[in-house]
């Protein structure tokens, strides 16, 4: 089991460029999440998905889009990158077990927008 994997590990973009971050999990989890981590702010939820074909907005969704076409994959897109989107992005997945789910995190993608 690889758990939760993220691609790429690091990326540099120019303002206005677009890119897609890929998250994959092999644990057959229903729920997947995208967070961003900024210094002094902990992790903030961008978007999440409770199943294949469904997505929902989190705490800070502006400037991002997501898709969950396959259960094992959750894609995060930046259509027009801005310097404010420089951050470390974490994907997580979980399986609901009576509401007591544990989220399992990927290793992160470090994004720098110039």
């Amino acid at each position, binding site marked *: 089991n690889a758990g*939760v994997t993220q691609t790429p590990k690091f990326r540099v973009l120019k303002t206005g460029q677009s890119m897609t971050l890929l998250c994959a999990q092999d644990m057959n989890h229903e*729920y997947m*999440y995208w967070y961003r981590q900024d210094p*002094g*702010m*902990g*992790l*903030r*939820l961008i978007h*999440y998905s*409770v199943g294949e074909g469904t997505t929902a907005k*989190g705490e800070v969704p502006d400037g991002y889009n997501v898709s969950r076409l396959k259960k094992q994959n959750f894609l995060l897109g930046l259509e027009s990158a801005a310097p404010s989107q420089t951050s470390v992005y*974490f994907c*997580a997945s*979980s399986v*609901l077990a009576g*509401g*007591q*789910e*544990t*989220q*399992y*995190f*990927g*290793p*992160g993608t470090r994004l720098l927008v110039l």
Partner: protein
Amino acid sequence: AQSVTQLDSQVPVFEEAPVELRCNYSSSVSVYLFWYVQYPNQGLQLLLKYLSGSTLVKGINGFEAEFNKSQTSFHLRKPSVHISDTAEYFCAVKRDSSYKLIFGSGTRLLVRP
């Protein structure tokens, strides 16, 4: 709205000393509480969680936490730290009826020899 407060942004401590990392939350409903650890350049790893039952929860690497409902706290403790415990520690809370984890801002534990 729920929130999680980790008052200490950094906690320096000498090796083999005890440590307590503080976490307070605000919620008027039942919650589940978690502590995650992030080692340098890595993702988050679950240390321990409180779901119900005994208020003292034991986790990995010798850490434990105590749930105090009256003080809405979930402080993390270790009686004797190692250099390898140097990391950032995040407290998080989840409402029973919600999918979402709300994280605190993190506490950096710096263990010195």
